[in-house]
């Protein structure tokens, strides 16, 4: 089909060439002379194709492809006869191929050409810039049905669920809220370390609320051009208010919500304009009603204080690493579709995954399933069951993967291969030379540093051993005197393994 089209184009173009040559080019060999009678004979048979008036006489082309020159001027009666037959009569010199006479036309053509080229380039450029209106359009999208979930898919996070269920109840039964004189939270800020389920909660809310759920990332507000972000915020809120009641979910709010005046280059930049607009849209003179704004960040400490006052993000929900009970729930959710062998229980797993967040648990279980698959590769058809040893292998992998070794540590000591890790959990209390104390799980140690995950918070600290006064085990026997423990923290054995 394509080849046929190509062939057709060639045939048409070649045909066009032949036609044009026949119709317009008359620069063949010297034309033969023809007397007036001969000319009239041709004319009477209607065989003249064209005529041209030249200083030497009248040049005519005939149907049989010949050209004749008739001496003298064209007789007016002959001319009218030719005109009657519809024969084109042209004036002037015959044009020959590639003759210089086109140079007379060149200046005009060049100017015209330049204008045309400019015009085309401008149009093309405009085509690229046509999208400027869509610049200011909100990038917020409505979450597709396939991506939503329910609160049942979120393990733990009870506090957050309570607040979000309030939102659901408001959206489903606005009248009751009105009757009670209550106002739903204007904005809900989910904060907490990464991987603890902030985005998951938002997705669940989208599934539960039954209202239009617009989602976007705060970084989508920011664009090269100043003012675009603010326009996009406005557009987001306008779009959402048209579909009210609705929910706007802004992921990674810190991208625009950073404390004003903290950036480089003065106080009036694109990000701040965007933030100002966001503040106004949340609770300003032109605040939009019927919109609940949900935002997630893991840097709530850098957020502008105006963003956090009542009437804006007035509910701040801290989402922490899951407790053992919550881990059981999370494990149950992620074990759906996986088969656990009899020798592993949920409670055991919850114990094994101490300190894991939701994302890590999910990854851990997936890794275990992969290991189980690998183990049973030789026995097709059999159901793949995750056994305790798969879990143990996955756990080791997960420990190594996260292991409390971050980019700062990488700068301090190079690579993970240079640190040693405890054989099991090693909780200890580390007293520093200045009197401060850190209690928590020792993640790794090497000759100069020891890294501790602090109890009661998700913070991890890397402590130079030079600063350490003593290390005392919290839940085991201290096998070595404190000074020795500093040199070799693994002398602290967890209870039971010592």
């Amino acid at each position, binding site marked *: 089909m394509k080849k046929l089209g190509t062939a057709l*184009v060639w045939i048409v*173009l070649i045909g066009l*060439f*032949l036609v044009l040559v026949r119709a*317009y080019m008359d620069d063949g060999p010297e034309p033969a002379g023809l007397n007036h009678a001969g000319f009239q004979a041709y004319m009477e048979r209607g065989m003249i194709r064209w005529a041209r008036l030249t200083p030497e006489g009248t040049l005519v082309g005939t149907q049989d492809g010949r*050209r004749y020159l008739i001496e003298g001027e064209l007789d007016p009666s002959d001319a009218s006869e030719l005109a009657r037959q519809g024969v084109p009569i042209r004036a002037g010199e015959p044009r020959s191929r590639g003759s210089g006479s086109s140079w007379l036309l060149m200046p005009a*053509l060049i100017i015209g*050409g330049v204008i045309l080229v400019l015009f*085309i380039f401008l149009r093309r450029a405009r085509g690229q810039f046509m999208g400027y209106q869509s610049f200011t359009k909100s990038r917020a999208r409505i979450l597709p049905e396939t991506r939503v979930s329910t609160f049942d898919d979120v393990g733990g996070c009870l506090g957050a669920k309570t607040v979000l269920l309030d939102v659901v109840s408001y959206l489903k039964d606005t009248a009751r809220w009105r009757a009670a004189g209550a106002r739903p939270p204007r904005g809900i800020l989910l904060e907490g370390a990464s991987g603890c389920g902030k985005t998951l909660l938002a997705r669940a809310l989208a599934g539960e609320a039954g209202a239009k759920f617009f989602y976007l990332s705060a970084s989508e507000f920011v664009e090269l051009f100043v003012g675009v972000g603010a326009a996009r915020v406005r557009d987001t809120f306008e779009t959402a208010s048209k579909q009210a009641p609705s929910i706007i979910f802004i992921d990674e709010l810190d991208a625009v919500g950073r404390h004003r005046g903290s950036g480089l280059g003065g106080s009036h930049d694109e990000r701040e304009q965007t933030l100002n607009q966001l503040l106004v849209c949340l609770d300003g003179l032109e605040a939009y009603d019927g919109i609940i704004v949900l935002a997630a960040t893991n840097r709530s400490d850098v957020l502008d204080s105006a963003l956090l006052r009542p009437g804006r993000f007035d509910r701040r929900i801290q989402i922490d690493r899951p407790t053992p009970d919550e881990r059981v729930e999370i494990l149950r959710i992620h074990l759906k579709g996986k088969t656990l062998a009899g020798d592993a229980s949920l409670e055991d797993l919850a114990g094994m995954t101490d300190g894991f967040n939701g994302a890590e648990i999910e990854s851990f279980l997936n890794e275990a399933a992969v290991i189980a698959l690998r183990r049973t590769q030789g026995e097709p058809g059999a159901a793949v069951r995750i056994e305790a040893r798969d879990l143990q292998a996955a756990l080791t992998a997960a420990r190594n993967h996260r292991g409390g070794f971050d980019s700062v540590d990488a700068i301090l000591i190079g690579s993970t291969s240079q640190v040693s890790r405890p054989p099991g959990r090693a909780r200890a209390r580390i007293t520093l030379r200045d009197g401060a104390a850190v209690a928590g799980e020792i993640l790794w140690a090497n000759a100069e540093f020891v890294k501790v995950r602090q109890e009661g918070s998700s913070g991890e600290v890397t402590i130079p051993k030079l600063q350490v006064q003593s290390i005392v085990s919290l839940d085991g026997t201290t096998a070595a005197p404190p000074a020795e423990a500093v040199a070799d923290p693994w002398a602290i054995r967890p209870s039971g393994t010592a």
Partner: protein
Amino acid sequence: MEVLEELLAARVAGFIPVLLSLSVHEWAHAWTALRLGDDTAARLGRVTMNPFAHVDPVGTLILPLLGFPIGWAKPVPVNPIRFRRDIRMGTGILLVAAAGPASNICLAVACGAGILALQEGITGSAQDPIGLFLFQMVLINVVLAAFNMLPVPPLDGSRIVDALVPARFRPAWESFSRVGPILLIVAIVAIHAAGWGLFDGIQEGIERLLAGDGA
């Protein structure tokens, strides 16, 4: 109006063989690249002799029809990284670049043979449109091949030189490459403005060759 119409007709007619030859030229690049394993051009639909696939609105249509002495088709994109592993990238670039002019030579020879087969000698006049077409094809293809083999960027010849130039001369070649395109345009415009037919010699040679062989 009459004059303009004729001028335009002459331009269009003179332009058709150019368009067809350019299509074959670009097709040869794309086809060779595909043969060597790079389907970049193929996926853009360039492995075809259909002129519409290769037309650049400004370089192929507007400038030549306005009578500018310069024109160009849409370049065929080539991604040497995608060449087959048994072809060195430099060799591949050379082959793809050479394919264009080579295809024009083939086409010129074919059309020349056509002229010789159809008749004795040529008239190159309107009285013999098919002969004129074939003659034009020979002329344009020889010109295209010769012109494109000039070792000046962005012409095909420069790619070949680029693949072959010894490391010793590379700095000189690179600095020449930078000014090459400007020199080329200036040279073409200057020669055209001076009224020298750029390829009169070639035309004369072909005419003599065909006439001599046909006699």
